[in-house]
């Protein structure tokens, strides 16, 4: 036992802290905390509108350089071409905003086309409902395996890429049969008809993008998607239905890919079996180039639309130049991807407040 007075001995060496600084000395000051800096504003502007600026720039410059580019016919061709990847990319946007990825859309797109062409012999409604039902089921299965069983999105959707392709081959005698859409049918009209010079596919894509934007920005469900991608833990703790949101985005992605495939079949008058290979990569590229964070939590459907158009215009230009190999397209996409993804990473890092 030691008497407690011991500490009073002259050896006492209680040292005061070096600097009291209770009211936040230099370490706690963050004067920029409440107001965005100009750099921050610029970063956010580039993130949101960068792709649109690039798109406008590319269109304006190439209109001067290639007279054949700035024609109504060419514009119509580019937009119709872009309508289908755009619808697929719309679904992909929702998936990526939740922090996931859907690699199955290319196969599902092809499967939707084949199913629609096959069912079109019974009329418009079956031709739309059958692909939607099957592709929606594939999407929902993806979602359930990812959200409920906790499996990695890329591996689940890679597997369903394979499965959907397998299903497609199974119903086409291993790709030997190509179902044709009856001429002059209402279904064929859906892909080929137009109002005021705009093909139905373009109008459908625009309507879907409008709806998608509304859902994403103006509904509680849309907000939940951002929250799930931004921080799934926080979203759970805030009591948001995280698992349901995940299942739904994969369902939507499957539905949209199937619908795009169906309308594409109507436009081509047949269920082409070898279509859609690598489409998932184009869709992801467009989404990311459009400013959606590949890690989730931020993005917009309008950006995706501009991203799809930008890629379509570049493809068109490569074709215009003629001497260029069409595979420059994916080189450009890949280049864009690296730049955008690395830039996003550094923006995110500079943003971190703690």
């Amino acid at each position, binding site marked *: 036992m030691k008497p407690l007075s011991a500490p009073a001995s002259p050896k006492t060496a*209680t040292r*005061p*802290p070096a600097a*009291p600084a209770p*009211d936040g000395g230099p370490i706690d000051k963050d004067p920029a905390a409440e107001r965005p800096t100009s750099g921050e504003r610029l970063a956010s502007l580039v993130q949101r509108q960068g792709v649109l600026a690039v798109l406008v720039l590319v269109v304006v410059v190439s209109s001067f350089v290639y007279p054949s580019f700035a024609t109504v016919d060419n514009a119509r061709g580019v937009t119709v071409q872009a309508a289908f990847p755009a619808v697929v990319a719309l679904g992909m946007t929702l998936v990526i905003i939740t922090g996931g990825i859907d690699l199955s859309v290319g196969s599902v797109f092809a499967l939707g086309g084949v199913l629609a062409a096959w069912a079109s012999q019974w009329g418009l409604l079956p031709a739309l409902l059958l692909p939607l039902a099957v592709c929606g089921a594939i999407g929902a299965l993806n979602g359930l395996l990812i959200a409920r069983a906790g499996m990695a999105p890329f591996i689940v959707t890679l597997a369903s890429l394979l499965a959907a392709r397998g299903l497609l081959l199974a119903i086409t005698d291993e790709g030997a049969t190509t179902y044709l859409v009856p001429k002059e049918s209402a279904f064929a009209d859906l892909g080929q008809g137009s109002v005021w010079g705009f093909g139905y596919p373009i109008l459908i894509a625009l309507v879907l993008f409008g709806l998608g934007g509304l859902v994403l920005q103006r509904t509680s469900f849309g907000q939940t998607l951002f929250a799930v991608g931004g921080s799934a833990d926080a979203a759970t703790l805030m009591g948001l239905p995280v698992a349901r949101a995940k299942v739904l985005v994969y369902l939507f992605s499957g539905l949209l890919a199937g619908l795009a495939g169906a309308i594409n079949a109507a436009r081509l008058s047949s269920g082409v079996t070898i279509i859609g290979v690598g489409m998932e990569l184009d869709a992801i590229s467009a989404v990311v180039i459009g400013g959606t964070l590949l890690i989730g939590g931020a993005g917009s459907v309008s950006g995706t639309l501009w991203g799809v158009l930008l890629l379509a215009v570049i493809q068109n230009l490569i074709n215009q130049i003629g001497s260029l190999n069409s595979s420059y397209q994916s080189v450009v996409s890949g280049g864009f991807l690296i730049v955008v993804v690395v830039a996003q990473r550094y923006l995110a890092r500079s943003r971190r407040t703690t």
Partner: protein
Amino acid sequence: MAPPEAAAPATAGPEPATAPAVLEARGVSKRFPGVVALDDVSFTLRAGETHALVGENGAGKSTLIKVLTGVHRPDSGELLLAGRQMHFARPFEAQQAGISTIYQEVNLVPLMSVARNIFLGREPTSRLGLIDFARMHREAAGLLAGFGVRVDPRRPLHTLGVGTQQMVALARAVSVEARVVVMDEPTSSLEPREVETLFRVIGDLRRQNIAVLYVSHRMDELYRICDRVTVLRDGRHIHTGDLADIDRMQLVSMMLGREVTEVRRHGVTAFGDEGHDVARTPVLTATGLTRRHQLDAVGLELHAGEVLGLGGLLGSGRSETAKALAGALALDAGEITVAGRPMRRTTSARAIRAGISLLPEDRKAEGIVPGLSVRENIVLAAMPRLSRAGIVSRRRQDRIVDIFMKRLRIKASSPEQQVGELSGGNQQKVLLARWLCLEPKVLLLDEPTRGIDVGAKAEVQALIDELAQEGLAVLLISSDIEELVEGSDRIVVLRGGAVAGELTGDQVGESTLLQVLADHAPPAAADAADAVPGPGTEAAPHIPAGAPAGKEDPR
């Protein structure tokens, strides 16, 4: 004001209270693989009170909070909200029932705007069912203005300071129809001005008869705003009562599980009696270690052959200091010198090369590689030295492993057993062996005996003693106050990320340590005076709750 009422044992049935119980836990237990996180815990939260929940690491506070907020389901026991039994399957249901929570780490979505974060999941909608952003922004701005925060609610959350983010979390928690607000260390990242705002908000909540469960390690705050306190330790309920009835010394004693009486300097632990031969010149010197919100100009010296204890309550910056010394935590400022040579841009690899080894606090997350064998876990850091041209030499490895398995008495079926299958004590010994086989000059031990059985604990303690005798400089961090006092030649006490005092020679004793731990602001001048307590084994009378507590701690 809280009803002045004697502390009732929480295990008793419904207690007579002037204010009705709004939330009650009865005999709640929760087990995780290998740990009993909560063991038959009961406590009551009354309407309109601010109730402190305190305890050291592993006491079960966060588990209890998670049970109350629906994150975990209890294994047994029941929850009653306003007298009705509740079963929360997920956080959403707890929130629906009126229990909202502010977490220590801001649990909001950084990329979304302030207003969206506040209203996530219950956005105001227009007649068309679409979100009415104008109204949302207006309401958000109004809510925040009530907290003295003026920010554009359209700004993304991540562009705000952490303190402001915490205020947004508070706004979210309060804006739901909450009956209970749980606050888990809400002030850990707040500026003093923001703390005042928070306290004002808590005052408002009290007037609205909303109960607040307040978790904090800052004595000043507890005594300033809380009516009652519940102490947990090792997953068990220790005490519930009016805060005015117990002083700081008693409270800290309960948290640490120590009586407020001096114990023998040497006896219970396995540390040797004699002090160590301490070298004159320090082998490691650190000055002005500073990291925003975590460390504030921490300085210390370590000499060869001594065990320097690093004391402090949870959140005082002990682990951060150790990590900074080991190059595993980036510093905003500060200098570290090893054997006279300054270390620049420290990384773990450089610190290890300089002879500093850190046994991290979290054995599972930062220590063992569970899928690898005992042998491989031991040689992990020393692998390059035990290899020739990049090819592993089993013979050299086996020799080292054999030496250390014998010396530390590691109980494994063979060196090839997976380390994940060992007991906690043996895992810890494996980690010690990993560092010892590097022959370090400085050994930083962060909670080396936590969660390991008594036998292994004694062995580890004896080993620490032995190592110091062999001339190693040891830094010992321990929440076990007995271990700290008996094992250390000298103790530096941290509080709020800064050095609050140092005990040398005969001062190294439990009661002096408790005094410094429990002490309050103002830190600079008073520390020197207060660390020299008056006589008597009972705690010196401290300023009772409710009295003006002066300034906040620096952190």
